């Protein structure tokens, strides 16, 4: 098991290095420097700025100096917000995005899990068809359509929740969290239904029933543990999806999180910010995938041997 973890970590390191390298050189290939604004800047000023941000040095030099800075956890200064570092912007945005993602995930697991379990207990009745129809809607209606629609209905017409902001007015966290979580609730619902249906047909469930246990105990003590196993494998990859989903949700609801900063940086051509956030988010996602792999291998020892022999 330890060997599995160590090998996986050493497999992840080159991936992160490749991401850093590819992002760095891609950004340098972009047409137009960061200081080519609409206003004409005096050549001396431009040269001074470029010297300040080390852009006058050879590119490999810049690359290694950037790597060295990264090694110390320094993402460098932001090009567009003078005097602020990329670290500060990430530190400001990340807690908000993490909170949003956390609420979305809670919503997804509770709503999706409950509806999926209920559906699996009454297969092919309306209690199965109704949640599964909603799940299909959740998968097919994208967040950028769901978000504005919820805003229109609950924010404007019914006036139950505020339509934008984060933590300013009570209740303004509700709509963004539901919007981000809806698609995941749909997947969780389908996964837990399928998982439960499979477990409920097993012999040990029949044994439990034959012992005369109440249906409630059969389900909560025996079926749920196995039936919800597929969810664990789903949550790792879901994390990456939540992060990119937050780009849209934060833009729609004007939530000051990392996703919104990233989209703004992309529009402003704030190269150090794009570079920094890309590296930060990619590393985070690689780490989460790693953890999800390790968790899956811990629960299912057969997966550990796959490491060395693909089949």
């Amino acid at each position, binding site marked *: 098991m330890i060997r599995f973890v160590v090998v996986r970590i050493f497999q992840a390191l080159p*991936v992160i290095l490749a991401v850093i390298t590819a992002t760095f050189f891609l950004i340098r290939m972009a047409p137009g420097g960061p200081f080519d604004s609409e206003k004409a800047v005096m050549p001396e000023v431009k040269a001074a700025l470029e010297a300040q941000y080390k852009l006058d040095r050879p590119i490999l030099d810049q690359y290694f100096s950037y790597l060295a800075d990264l090694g110390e956890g320094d993402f460098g200064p932001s090009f567009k917000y003078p005097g602020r570092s990329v670290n500060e912007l990430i530190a400001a945005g990340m807690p908000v995005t993490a909170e949003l993602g956390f609420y979305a995930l809670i919503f997804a697991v509770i709503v999706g899990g409950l509806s999926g379990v209920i559906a699996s207990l009454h297969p092919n009745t309306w209690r199965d068809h109704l949640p599964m129809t909603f799940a299909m809607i959740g998968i097919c209606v*994208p967040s*950028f359509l769901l978000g504005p629609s919820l805003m229109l209905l609950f924010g404007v017409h019914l006036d139950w929740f505020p339509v934008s902001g984060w933590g300013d007015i009570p209740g303004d966290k509700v709509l963004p969290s539901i919007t981000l979580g809806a698609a995941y609730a749909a997947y969780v619902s389908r996964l837990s239904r399928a998982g439960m249906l499979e477990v409920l047909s097993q012999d040990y469930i029949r044994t439990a029933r034959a012992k005369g246990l109440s249906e409630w105990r059969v389900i909560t003590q025996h079926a749920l543990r196995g039936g919800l196993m597929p969810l664990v494998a789903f949550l790792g990859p879901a994390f990456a999806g939540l992060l990119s989903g937050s780009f849209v949700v934060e833009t729609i609801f004007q939530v000051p999180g990392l996703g919104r900063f990233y989209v703004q940086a992309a529009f402003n051509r704030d190269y150090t910010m794009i570079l920094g956030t890309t590296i930060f988010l990619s590393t985070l996602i690689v780490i989460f995938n790693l953890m999800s792999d390790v968790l899956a291998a811990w629960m299912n020892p057969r997966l550990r041997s796959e490491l060395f022999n693909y089949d």
Partner: protein
Amino acid sequence: MTEQEDLEINDIASGSSLSKDAWIRLRKNRPALGGLIILTAFFAIALFTPWIAPYGYEVQDLNLGATGPSQDHWLGTDIFGRDLLTQIMYGGRISLSVGFLATIVALFIGVTWGSIAGFVGGRIDSVMMRLVDILYALPFMIFIILLMVVFGRNMLLLFLAIGAVEWLTMARIMRGQVQNLRQQEFVEAAVAIGLSRSVILVRHIIPNAIGPIIVYTTLTIPSVMLLEAFLSFLGLGIQPPETSWGLLIAYGAETMEEYPWLLLFPGFFLAVTLFSLNFLGDGLRDALDVRGAKD
């Protein structure tokens, strides 16, 4: 007489091909058949849009402004007085073509990669599939945004970037298929008569994996269309003067408080298309009896 018996008698009488059986099964699946009909209709409309659109693409009437659905404009008009139905028809052309072309790119890379890995096997297979695993772990959404920022927002790049992301699952499925087929007797027979490996792969193995390829292609198109709409919504995909459903939804969201129909109608068309593709994909999977084609 049940349809099943009917089918069996027909089998004996005239012989039945795999595709004929699949079609009969698909026809009984109402949601899938509905999806197929809707998609065919949307395609036909997209194809003939320049001739059947009620107004020209660039026709606007600034004096009219945004109006709700009426006799002259079935789905209303936007703030420039442009007919929304016309905009949706032209936007659908782009959304559907991105969906299909990018899927073809993904299909081509995925089938080639997966079938070579599965057919050659051994070390090459391990290395190729390990690479797929590594790519799976990367946050591609971020990379597509990065590519669009660096190289400018053009459609060709959009096809290639989305296609380059979506091939991974196709490669995995193909590899599994080819590994199974490689051990079948008809492949041994092909080896015995001295066919070259590339001929065996292209003529004998890939055609036998066509079921999973069709099913997975149907299920890739909606995720590609979503990706395009997602990027366009953020302003990083399709650029004006072109339009797409994602872009129309983005404009609609800006003015939804005053003119909700500008959000709801384009959203409706996108959602219906995605529904149809998902139902058709699920139906095809059952009809062609493909397992594990959707992760």
